[in-house]
């Protein structure tokens, strides 16, 4: 455990999950049932991937704040084009087998099977170092040559969104300032200064 307050972490995570749990339930009630509800194993994989992608440091990690739960919500609702038929360039070659009947890509099944392959076995049963190596390999391939290819960039983007738009991610890991009150056009960037999650133009354009 780091210097981060564990009670605070659990509270933040529970809060995030509480916020997210309602819309997932609402979504399920509102929409036609599908046969592709995430399995318990897929949920655990999402949780582990969230925490490896953004580990716990002096601030909470990805799973600590429910970034994985946000990923499940986002995929269920089709954020970032994840439920559109032939979701962009993601469905190519070997990924074609993860195409749903509606033409969209089953990102979670792809992630599950891809990580098992990269881990040379059961990803969840593998030691943490092998899990990290598997995800690192997957990530490196997806962003090779400064290109974004395959389903992973969408998943990664949604996990990052889940993290940095959570209260701990946005206001503890980064800085959140709703009412700056002034604009300073040129300040020295000093060590330890954090980026702003509330710089909306930067958020939009990256």
């Amino acid at each position, binding site marked *: 455990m780091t210097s981060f307050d564990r009670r605070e972490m659990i509270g933040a995570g529970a809060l*995030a999950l509480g916020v997210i749990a309602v819309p997932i339930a609402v979504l399920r009630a509102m929409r036609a049932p599908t046969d592709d509800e995430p399995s318990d194993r897929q949920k655990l994989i999402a949780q582990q991937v969230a925490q490896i992608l953004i580990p716990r440091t002096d601030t909470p990690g990805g799973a600590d704040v429910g970034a994985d739960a946000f990923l499940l919500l986002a995929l269920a609702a089709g954020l970032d084009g994840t439920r559109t038929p032939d979701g962009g360039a993601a469905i190519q070659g070997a990924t074609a087998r993860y195409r749903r009947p509606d033409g969209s890509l089953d990102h979670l099944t792809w992630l599950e099977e891809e990580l098992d392959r990269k881990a040379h076995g059961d990803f969840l049963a593998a030691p943490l170092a092998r899990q990290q190596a598997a995800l690192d390999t997957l*990530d490196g391939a997806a962003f090779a040559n400064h290109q974004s290819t395959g389903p992973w960039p969408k998943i990664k983007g949604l996990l990052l969104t889940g993290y940095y738009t959570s209260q701990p991610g946005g206001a503890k890991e980064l800085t959140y300032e709703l009412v700056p009150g002034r604009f*300073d056009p*040129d*300040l020295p960037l000093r060590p330890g*200064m954090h980026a702003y999650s509330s*710089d*909306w133009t930067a958020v939009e*354009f990256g």
Partner: protein
Amino acid sequence: MMTVNFDAIVVGSGITGGFAAKELTEKGLKVLMIERGPKIEHGTGYKTETLAPWDLPFRGLGDAEQYASVYPVQSKNRHFTEFTQDHFCRDDENPYTTPAGGEFTWFRSYNLGGRSLTWGRQCYRWSDYDFGANKRDGNGTDWPIRYAELAPWYDRVEDFVGVSGAAEGMPQLPDGHFQPPMPLNVVEQHVREGISARWPGRRLTIGRTANLTQEKDGRSACQYRSICARGCSYGAYFSTQSASLPAAMKTGLLTVVTDSVVEGVDYDPVTRRATGVRFLDTAKKERHRATARLVFLNAGAFNTNHILLRSHSEAMPNGLANSSGVLGTHIMDHATTLSAIAIMPGFEQHTTFGNRPTGIVIPRFRNLETLDGNGFTRGYSFQGGALQSTWTQGKRQAGIGHGFKTHLRTPGDWKMILVTFAESMPRASNRLTLDPAKIDANGAPALNIAFAHGKEEHAALADAKAEAAAMLGAVGGQVVMGMDQPGPGGSAIHEMGGARMGLDPTTSVLDKWSRAHDVANLFVTDGAQMSSSASQNPSLTYLALTARACDAAVSMLRSGTL
């Protein structure tokens, strides 16, 4: 049906409607302002203003599935988010049609204040390069006015609106009555100096914006949040709610009706005058009629055309004020695209504080004294700015774990972005008509929008891409991408025209006072009146024309010439 009587009726409560109501009431007229959408109160009506992403179910991104069914067009607007969605109209209830292959993204706000709540707030005067453009190259019809006639009305509008900006002395972008400018950031200042040194005729300056840098008339100075489209309870940017409506209400002469869509303007063929309007209370499903001595149409450019086309009668079978037959034609937007993104090295030790709600502008430099455009005769300008990346850069980068988290914790690379707005040529083939089959939720015929950018706009964007890369490269930028193809029509949210102003009643709809040639007491002072599009954001010019028309209308009314 209930009938009530007013001096003037203003249809629409957006940027120009609210301002017309203010001007007319302040001149002593009893005014009815009719808004098709619901009331949004200043301050208390801005439900998401102070929320954080974690307060919203989808963290600000919104429910994509709902957006696909309810807001398929509006959700393409970069200002449309989970925070702002209630400030846009429902596409499913307000359909329009386009010809096959002719996409047009029509962004609309059907609520009190209209798009004044969500507008980009950029305020630029037009020059005689713009008012003289149609005459110069023979496209469209000549404007019946020039800059000198509009200059005092720009003054009046800027004094009320509150526009911050820097005077630059450029004839193609006349200076105005400005509040102190917001500063350029360190990278923008560097780019400004580099461009001016290499190209003396080009100037990067701060975007002139309807955000206050000083308190004004009970409105606070900008708090540098840059979340304007949620609504600003500080009143720091100009909107109907923050500025025009309070001024009009102060007179005690304004009646506001919301949730009421105007179905037509009544016309008396004997007197050749508009007698009032018919409107439907969409909540109670009741129809009403209001009468007035003046009618101002400010429903938004295309909806004003829609009302005129729907107001056909035996005397005017092709639409009200359409004896010329040009009503609905020569509609325009701007051709816009992201011309360049460049990484700006050398500023790694610099950062900023606060969210400035405006960017930069590089005014047009083509086709001024010399026609130097390759394949185009009009202008284009750049808007954009320099920014420092934050966590979203991680979506496009390799990396996981502690190192990646540390990387995203720190402000990232500086980037400079240039977006082009190219002038849209007025073409008869770009036009609005009533769809013969499609109807909206209230039974009204839907508007059909036929629009395509032409070769001139494509040529301008190709030139802009090359020039953007040249300028950013010359100041040390590393251009990583740029585009030269425009987005679909409507992308600039500057749709205009259809009821163009002109000298000749046989080729134009409005006279030099924004008044219908055919109907002496009918005024159109929103974007519908435009005869050309320039390359500047048009709202300030709509406002100046509105102020001028209101003054003229009241003078005519009082002198008995109406």
